[in-house]
């Protein structure tokens, strides 16, 4: 009905005369298809996470009894899996609290060091003329697209030799080197949207280069810096390959990702307990994502647009 009125208003002659024109059929089919697609998207993207959550609060015995049930009764509900996965190994748990501390240390450290490097670096690339500026930009692009497995071998050998394998500090260095080029790219784009006239005005008022950066450019770039920080945090928190290569022999230094992947194969630890571990690993990311969705989607498109 609505489409008919709309079609008449827009003056499409064919569709208003014949009741089953191609236009009408297509519009009708596509309207239905659209809602089906939306339903499928929601189901496919959210169901695995719902399944994760449900399994994490069901006792293993009830899972094995009725594996097809995807809701939970109040009687079944138990949060024992969480205490079991978080408790330290000496108390019979899996020690995820320690893993979370490690992940947080590495991720926050990576954010801090990367920003300390990337803010001045991106400012220099966007604002200052210096020798080799374009070449440095090209180098950073190449780093971004390089296969990380190729890097993994020499770094593995190098860290084995200098005895830094098994240390969180070594992992942090690798992460910084991996994310700093993307970070510079994102921030540089933002600095370029800030009009130079503001900085020039400050320069005329007698402010030096550093004072201008600190007082004018940084506050203006704050939204970009925050979204960049969240983005780096997510990358570092989610990273797996380098953590696996460097930390696998040092259990006390495992990150949550590594801990989960290492324990997932063992038969002694119930799946439901490890699902609780998955929830713990995923939760910080989901919280950050929904809290700053707008900032992050913009950051994601800006960061990956360099290809």
């Amino acid at each position, binding site marked *: 009905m609505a489409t008919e009125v709309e079609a008449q208003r827009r003056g499409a002659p064919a569709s208003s005369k014949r009741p089953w024109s191609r236009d009408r059929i297509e519009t009708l089919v596509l309207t239905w298809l659209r809602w089906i697609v939306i339903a499928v998207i929601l189901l496919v993207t959210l169901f695995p996470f719902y*399944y994760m959550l449900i399994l994490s609060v069901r006792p293993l015995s009830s899972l094995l009894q009725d594996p097809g049930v995807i809701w939970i009764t109040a009687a079944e509900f138990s949060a024992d899996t969480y205490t079991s996965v978080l408790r330290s190994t000496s108390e019979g748990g899996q020690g995820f609290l320690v893993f979370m501390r490690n992940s947080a240390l590495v991720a926050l450290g990576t954010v801090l060091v990367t920003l300390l*490097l990337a803010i*001045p670096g991106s400012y220099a690339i966007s604002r200052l003329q*210096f020798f080799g500026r374009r070449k440095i930009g090209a*180098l950073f692009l190449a780093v971004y697209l390089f296969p990380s*497995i190729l890097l993994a071998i020499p770094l593995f050998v190098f860290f084995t030799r200098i005895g830094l394998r098994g240390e969180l500090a070594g992992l942090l260095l690798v992460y910084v080197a991996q994310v700093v*080029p993307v970070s510079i790219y994102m921030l540089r784009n933002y600095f370029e949207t800030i009009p130079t006239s503001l900085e020039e005005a400050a320069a005329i008022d007698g402010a030096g280069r550093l004072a201008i950066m600190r007082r004018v450019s940084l506050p203006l770039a704050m939204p970009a810096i925050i979204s960049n920080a969240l983005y780096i945090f997510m990358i570092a928190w989610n990273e797996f390959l380098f953590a696996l290569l460097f930390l696998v022999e040092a259990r006390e230094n495992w990150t949550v990702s590594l801990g989960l992947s290492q324990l997932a194969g063992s038969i002694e630890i119930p799946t439901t307990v490890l699902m609780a571990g998955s929830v713990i*690993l995923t939760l910080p990311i989901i919280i950050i994502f929904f809290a700053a969705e707008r900032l992050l989607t913009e950051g994601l498109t800006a960061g990956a647009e360099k*290809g």
Partner: protein
Amino acid sequence: MTTSIRRANGAPTPGASEPRATRKLSPMARAEQRAGLFLISPTLVIVVVMVVLPIVWTILLAFQRIRLLNLRTAGIFGNYTISNFVEVFSSPGFLEALMTTLVYSVAGTGLAILFGLVAALALRKPFRGRTFVRAATLIPYVAPIVAVTFVWTTMLNPQFGIINVWGTQFLGWDDAVPFLSERQREVSFLGLTFPVPTALLTVIAFEAWRSFPFAFLFLTARLQAVPASLDEAARVDGATPTQRFRHILLPQLLPTIAVLSVLRFIWTFNSFDDIYLLTGGGAGTEVVAVRVYNFLTARGDIGAASAQALVLAAILAVLVGIYLKFFARKEEVG
């Protein structure tokens, strides 16, 4: 803008023009040069030390017989040999892994972009709750890879995984399907039987699921930039929805799709985490990255691992080079 920078830097012919250009710089410009280099140098140092030097070192390692055991005694100037490459190319597993990588990347990239496009089109017009659906769509991409692979392996578990339980209960499957550990399966369809690579298809499906949000994000951004007047004009001319998509929207989206194809292909081609965590490279899903990892850790054969990683990087460079040469240029003209 680019030419002026280049002239100021004297980049094109460093030997002759550089000193002259430097001499011409005013004191203020020279101060800017110094400030710029000073601000960028910490980043440059860490990238060179942690990325560039390691890559150079991989090339050296690929030409040496180095194993984890003799690592401490081996020097940078060891005996150079091409035996690693001979070994890599003569072992049948490598070519198979290369083919698997190629199939996995092409199918994964294609499906991810297709799903991303469908999702972007479906969520194009506003409706109540669209913001939430959009955010939900991105979750598979941002969630930690270890957690999502773990949930998938649990869902696909032959004993208590929900997919197999429902499949046997409601869809009439004869047996539970071991999605991640079965190399091949005969599937009957309309009286014909086809061999289907079960595990490979499963990891491709996973890849499409995980990375379609990325394509969705870019295509949505591009769709928002399509001028509404174009669509309106076509509607007035009596174009049906599919005609409008085919002749108005698709041409606008093609450049974005091209960029997405390159980016996603590069990343899928190099990806290690997904397959390592889902199947460990078993059941016909061993891609080159996983093979490199196995050579490095299980066998401790650093030389052969480096050689394979190099071949992977070289093939990738060639493929991307071909693409840029033949397709990227066509787009500029068209």
